[in-house]
């Protein structure tokens, strides 16, 4: 069930459903293998409260309707922390993250009035970095050598988008 307000040029985001258990490697945020049984148990637990502060969204390729990744949003109503994962078979996970940021940051900051939105991006994912900066995000934190790559390590950047400060409105009397 595509969310019309979370639709971009190449991808859209939607709520998770139980049948996604068959494609858990694409959306479950871990490098360790996960099978359908465990994925189903995870989904049943995580989805039972529709108003949970942690929401799991599937990232879908518009062209093929396949699950290409997952996005988890954890909020307390004022701040949102995002966690992204790309399916292991995706050739360009960097671009997928960038496409996701284009949709999600305006949604949370402008529509959702979040004071702060953060997401971690490895320092070598240049497309995501460029889009994050284009969206007005700033590098808040640089954690050195936190990401292991084959034969090398790269820094982890935590980007932060700041939303407008909440102010009180004058009450409207009838």
């Amino acid at each position: 069930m595509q969310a019309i307000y979370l639709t971009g040029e190449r991808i859209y985001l939607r709520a998770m459903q139980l049948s996604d258990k068959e494609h858990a490697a694409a959306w479950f945020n871990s490098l360790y293998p996960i099978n359908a049984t465990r994925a189903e148990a995870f989904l049943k637990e995580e989805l039972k409260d529709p108003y949970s502060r942690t929401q799991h969204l599937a990232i879908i390729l518009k062209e093929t309707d396949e699950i290409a990744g997952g996005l988890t949003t954890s909020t307390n109503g004022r701040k949102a922390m995002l966690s992204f994962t790309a399916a292991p078979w995706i050739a360009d996970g960097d671009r997928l993250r960038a496409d996701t940021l284009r949709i999600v940051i305006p949604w949370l900051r402008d529509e959702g009035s979040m004071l702060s939105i953060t997401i971690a991006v490895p320092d070598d994912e240049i497309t995501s970095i460029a889009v994050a900066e284009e969206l007005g995000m700033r590098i808040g934190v640089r954690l050195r050598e936190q990401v292991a790559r084959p034969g090398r390590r790269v820094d982890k950047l935590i980007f932060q988008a700041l939303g407008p400060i909440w102010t009180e409105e004058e009450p409207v009397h009838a």
Partner: protein
Amino acid sequence: MRNPILIGERVYLRALEKEDAEVFAHGSANEREHMMDRLRMPFSQVGYEHEIEDLHKRQPPENIELAVCLKENDLCIGSVGIFDIDYINGTAETGSWLGDAEYRGKGYGTEAKHLLLEYAFDRIQLHVLHSWVWEPNVRSAAALMKQGYQPAGRLEREEIKNGVHRAGLMFDVKRDEWLAARETWKARQAAVLG
């Protein structure tokens, strides 16, 4: 000493036991410093007991929290820990807490933290660690720098206090930075003790 994992001069670290929950509950109810966190809260001993039980459920664990105990009488005075351990990338977040103000500012926390860093870097072979400090908590920030941590940045509007948004400060440390800081600390200890 009871079930020690790492042993220092005045303190040792061991696995948390269910009865340590009383120390944490007592500490949260008697916390006098209000700038370590946004809000002091008297947490339930029952909740701490569950948390301690959960620590030992998964192998390898996602979080490792160790009791800090005085060698002279085995009294548990707080805890140190590594959290959100990423075994693939070799990273984790560190944290420490001394419950009773009587034991703060006397070097027990620093000694315990150096033991924890030895555990993280030399026993379970992590590559780099990070820690988070709320901006008003200048004492913790200074302690981290003494332990070899380097400033890694800040996240704005992390918490609100007295109507003002305050930032969260991040620090990280690599093994060689910690080793250098520990040598400095040991030399200082030796000079003090003569």
